[in-house]
């Protein structure tokens, strides 16, 4: 009996020091849907939501290309040469400011 009480007390203490798992809401940041969205899905979402894309505002093609390269070279996103081109075109098409 003593043992049971002890175990109970112990487990109570443990649970008191254990913080409930925090649930983070999942929010959909919708980006334009076309056949190339798959390129965005397989390269960008490893590390961040599409909020990061929308947050940048409309930018030049050079800006988006530099971002794609930064994601590949600095943050190690697995972007191959074909996807590099498609992602840049996609970003410029929907989130471009018309300037090259």
């Amino acid at each position, binding site marked *: 009996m003593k043992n049971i009480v002890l175990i109970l007390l112990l487990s109570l203490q443990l649970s008191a020091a*254990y*913080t409930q798992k*925090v649930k*983070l809401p999942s*929010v959909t940041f919708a980006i334009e849907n076309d056949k190339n969205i798959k390129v965005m899905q397989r390269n960008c979402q490893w*590390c*961040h939501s599409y909020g990061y894309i929308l947050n940048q505002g409309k930018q030049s093609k050079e*800006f988006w290309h530099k971002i794609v390269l930064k994601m590949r070279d600095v*943050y190690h996103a697995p972007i191959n040469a074909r996807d590099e081109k498609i992602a840049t075109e996609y970003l410029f098409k929907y989130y471009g400011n018309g300037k090259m």
Partner: protein
Amino acid sequence: MHRREFFKISFAAATAIVANLEASNTIRPRDNQKVLPIKFPQKRELILHSDRPPLLETPRDFFTTAITPNDAFFVRWHMPIIPTATNLDTYYVHIHGEVEKRLYLTVDMLKNDFEAVEVTAVMQCGGNSRSAFRPTTSGIQWGSGAMGCATFKGVRLKDILKKAGLKEDARWISLNGNDKAVMTKIENFKRELKIDEISDDTIVAYEMNGEEIPFLNGYPLRLIIPGFYADSWVKQLSDIYVTKEYQKYFFMDVAYRIPDNECECEEPDNLAKKTKPLEYMNVKSYIGYPKNNQKVKRATNLRIKGVAFDAGEGIKAVQISLDGGKTWQSATLADELSRYAFRVFTYNLKPMKKGKLQIMAKAINNKGEEQPFAHEIKWNHGGYKYNGIDSVTVTVV
């Protein structure tokens, strides 16, 4: 290199600088961004830039008080993998390296075995107000709400190092938290401090505004370095590594760096070769009330309210201009909670003329440094340290 070639190159560089000075033109940061009806744990509805990693910005209305409420405090994580459950029985900070005694300190040990100290300080992201820079720099395009001020309670970092006992040749410490990248090649968000530059105000905090630190602000332990930009304030602190030599870390040596020259500025086509880590904040103020596009009544008292701060010199004055910055009048300063805290300013007026009214606020610190106009802010590639004079325009009806 031949002398003649050298001159040619520097001449080309000089022309590029002149051409670009006209092209780069700082504007005012984003404002009046939408507050989405989504609540993150322990937070109220805020400006949401991303859910993964979570990026939340505090709306303008909250900058009328010296203390920012925990549930309105901005959130910025770099890594997508954040431990969402913390067992305080097994959570500890590991102090190791050039120390006499390796330590594993739990939160309870920090609370019971050390002197508790409190410091009220402004926490501001280095990229706060980044959206003002033109051309646009990469990085989150924050408005001006990536900042807040809180009272933190915890233990002096110096006391922890003293307990571990620094070896004679210990010079640097690396600080690491529990958040992680998806790609294994990416380093953790580590920061590095020079031991003899650690102040008594630098603490490992376990409380924020009298409560446990909110999960999204770094629960259960966060490094607090008053005066420094928040990129150095490691969240979910778990590791303190003492070294003889400076270690190279991505987030110290590549990211979060600014030009190491007098203006801390550079040109998009001619980036500064010498850079330095972001450290001390510059003087800044922000109007919390009224807001842009707000309607105010003619011939009625209007009480302008806002906050001002710097890196710890303290605020000497805040001035208000109602004529586009031609003339300035002193605002009233509230008590100073700490030299690192938000200093609340107020200014009363009774607008008599109907139509648009522009209100500008400028802070001056005890060193005599004052905020430049927004358009005078010089560009840097990371979009850091914007501190232009704030302005809101209301309509008098």
